[in-house]
């Protein structure tokens, strides 16, 4: 039958399209984790549903059976009878692959799909029959819904309506009339707007309610916003009405935005709107204002130190009281703003676990991914910025860390490798560790590669600390062959730079044969940081406190020189020193033996250095402002800040400072300066 064969041909191309969309949506499903949107599940359902319908009509039995089983499972999922689990997503992936094979076999009859259809169907069936609570009460009785509208809801839409009612959402009827020529466009805009505020459950078309020649629509919408907020959102595009029995009347809200009884109004609105979405830029702005207030506070403090104020005791007391209160309230404000920006790292965990699964499959390695500390909170912006570096570290762990299966078995290790991601808070920092139980980092191997790549000389010794440092050197990659997985043109040097851009640090802990841990330490927020203000050669600088491990006072004679590097012996450790004045080319000629200096011992990841300064001023919260292009490329400077004494102070970038100037002896540096001058 030619008609049949052309239908089949059309089917295969449409089926392939559907499968592509399905696999994209499935990835989204996995990424959304526990927060999966009902619309997404419904979309998956509809896609499988179309596929099943087509296959059924064309009597493609295997495709039809498999998609039917899947459809059943997704139907139960969208009806809330079963939940999204990792087994479920696994089976969905497997089924998509199965469907792909079956469709390929249709195109080319010489191919056998080799699919264990019965086994797959059985597993789908088992997952579908997990019991879920069917509730007895009819929540729809809680709202005013006319019979016509109720009948127009599909079973699924009815279920979504019930879910929205059960979870205490506001149920709104939104009515709009559009011109017939462009109603589809206008309605889509309205739907998109409402989707931001909640879920559009149903769209019912009707005759133009104003008696004109257009067309009206009534949308049923579940939302956490109050009716007033929804009215604000849609503006004059539509009229909004609550369907909850006994809810506030829309007329009162629309006509008089200033409510007659403010108390009642407030209560009813508060009960309805529990969350709002805010653009992060607005929070940035609030944070900037907080930063400016902090500066104002420092100005008040300077005022209280003026002699004329100090002599006037009543004024001084009053001023001090104001400062104390101001300080308390400001701290509270700052804490609240920071908390508002915080999101759990869980947001990226699901995305990362998807990648791990995919990479493990590509590498043909069996991996257990252990996720810990998913509720650890971090600044929203930082969480976003962390995705790429973490992805890179995880790929590395899978590709280079975990040994091939045979090797693991030969070593007596568990055949399944373990890769873990662990986040926890430590003081005002957040630590994220990416660990594997693989081969560990072998300094000899690193040394060999580094020599081959010309990163070090043939006779340079490499201990484990040096090996870890080499890993982060630009152009270094231990991959013996540039594999697809890790060979993406970026190395660990880029990872480290990303982390340091976030004012964080990364260090490596590794045991040969046992595994490797990359430990990332980050400040909880970038918006406001604690800094140590220091003075050097008459200038003030701010050193981020997160990098400071201790500070101590020494005399010039305590500085030793080892291999042309200035060092300090501190409790059996040799710490390379760097002079802030030298790093920034400031005149500083006092080199007498009994000169008193301060050493700020700073640590960024594995790198430690003592920063030599003349004076420690105080500890202070600062808001880092970015600086102009001219200074941006200057090594050792992260930005600028205002301290409240109307002074602009440069903020030291400790990581790049150590990289550029770490441990060079004073005389050698001086010599170079005069030579280049």
């Amino acid at each position, binding site marked *: 039958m030619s*008609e049949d064969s052309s*239908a089949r041909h*059309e*089917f295969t*191309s*449409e089926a392939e399209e559907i499968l592509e969309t399905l696999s994209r949506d499935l990835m989204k499903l996995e990424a959304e984790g526990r927060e999966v949107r009902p619309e997404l599940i419904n979309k998956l359902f*509809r896609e499988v*549903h*179309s596929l*099943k*319908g*087509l296959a*059924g*009509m*064309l*009597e493609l039995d295997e495709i*039809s059976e498999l998609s039917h089983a899947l459809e059943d499972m997704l139907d139960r999922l969208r009806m809330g009878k079963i939940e999204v689990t990792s087994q479920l997503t696994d089976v969905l992936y497997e089924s998509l692959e199965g469907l792909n094979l079956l469709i390929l076999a249709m195109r080319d009859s010489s191919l056998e799909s080799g699919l264990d259809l019965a086994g797959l169907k059985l597993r789908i069936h088992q997952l579908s029959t997990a019991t879920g609570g069917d509730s007895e009460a009819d929540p729809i009785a809680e709202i005013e819904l006319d019979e*016509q*509208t109720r*009948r*127009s*809801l*599909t*079973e699924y*839409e009815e279920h979504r309506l019930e879910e929205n009612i059960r979870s205490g959402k506001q149920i709104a009827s939104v009515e709009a009339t559009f011109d*017939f020529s462009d*109603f*589809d466009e206008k*309605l889509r805009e309205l739907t998109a707007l409402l989707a931001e505020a909640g879920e559009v459950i*149903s*769209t*019912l*078309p*009707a*005759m133009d309610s104003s008696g004109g020649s257009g*067309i009206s629509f009534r949308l049923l919408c579940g939302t956490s916003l109050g009716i007033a907020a929804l009215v604000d959102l849609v503006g004059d595009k539509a009229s909004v009405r609550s369907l909850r029995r006994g809810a506030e009347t829309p007329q009162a809200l629309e006509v008089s935005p200033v409510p007659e009884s403010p108390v009642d109004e407030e209560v009813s609105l508060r009960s309805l709107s529990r969350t709002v979405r805010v653009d992060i830029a607005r929070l940035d702005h609030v944070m900037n204002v907080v930063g400016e207030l902090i500066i104002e506070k420092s100005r008040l403090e300077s005022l209280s130190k003026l002699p004329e104020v100090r002599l006037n005791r009543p004024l001084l007391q009053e001023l001090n009281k104001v400062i104390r209160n101001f300080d308390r309230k400001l701290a509270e404000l700052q804490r609240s703003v920071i908390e508002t920006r915080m999101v759990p790292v869980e947001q990226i965990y699901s995305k990362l676990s998807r990648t791990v699964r995919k990479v493990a499959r590509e590498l043909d390695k069996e991996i257990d991914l252990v996720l810990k500390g998913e509720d650890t909170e971090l600044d929203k912006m930082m969480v976003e910025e962390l995705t790429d570096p973490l992805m890179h570290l995880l790929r590395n762990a899978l590709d280079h860390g975990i040994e091939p299966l045979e090797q693991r078995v030969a070593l007596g290790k568990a055949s399944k490798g373990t890769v873990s991601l662990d986040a926890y808070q430590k003081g005002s920092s957040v630590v994220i560790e990416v660990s594997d139980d693989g081969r560990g980092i072998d300094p000899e191997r690193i040394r060999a590669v580094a020599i081959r790549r010309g990163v070090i000389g043939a006779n340079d010794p490499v201990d484990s600390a040096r090996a870890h440092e080499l890993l982060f050197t630009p152009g270094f990659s231990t991959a013996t062959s540039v594999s697809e997985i890790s060979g993406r043109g970026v190395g660990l040097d880029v990872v480290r730079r990303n982390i340091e851009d976030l004012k964080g640090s990364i260090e490596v802990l590794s045991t040969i044969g046992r595994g490797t841990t990359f430990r990332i330490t980050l400040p909880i927020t970038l918006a406001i940081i604690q800094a140590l203000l220091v003075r050097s050669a008459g200038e003030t600088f701010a050193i981020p406190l997160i990098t400071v491990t201790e500070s101590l006072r020494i005399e010039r004679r305590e500085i030793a020189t080892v291999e042309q590097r200035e060092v300090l012996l501190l409790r059996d450790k040799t710490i390379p020193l760097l002079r802030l004045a030298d790093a920034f080319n400031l005149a500083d000629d006092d080199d007498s033996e009994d000169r008193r200096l301060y050493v700020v011992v700073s640590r960024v990841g594995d790198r430690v250095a003592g920063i030599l300064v003349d004076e420690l001023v105080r500890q202070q919260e600062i808001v880092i402002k970015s600086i102009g292009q001219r200074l941006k490329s200057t090594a050792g400077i992260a930005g600028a800040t205002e301290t409240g004494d109307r002074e602009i102070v440069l903020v030291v970038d400790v990581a790049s400072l150590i990289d550029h100037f770490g441990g060079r002896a004073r005389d050698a540096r001086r010599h170079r300066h005069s030579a280049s001058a």
Partner: protein
Amino acid sequence: MKILLVEDSPSMRSFLTSLIEEDSVVTSIEIVEAASGFEALKTLPHHNFAAILTDINMPDINGLELVSFLKSHPVYRNIPVLVISTEGSEEDRKRAAALGAEGYLVKPFTAGELSASLQRLLQVVS
């Protein structure tokens, strides 16, 4: 005689069209295709349809909402509607009937079943 076919899957649309047009019993039928409920709404004023066939599960507006609209419209209410759905949705069938749909057909169906349903549908008006 024109029939409106509302169905979001293109290959299902062309398959159904070919089934109906090659049906020897119901002759001289012209199929107008709509890929969504929106398209159906836009197409309606431009033709004089003898019947409407619609799928239920579609984006934008679903088949039941389309039926609801048609059956409460002073002009379109007289066009007989055949709702096409898939097995296992008994509740949807009941709702389609309650909204006033004249026929209901469950996928998968044979060319003969479709033809018989169409004939029944067209008799409703005549």
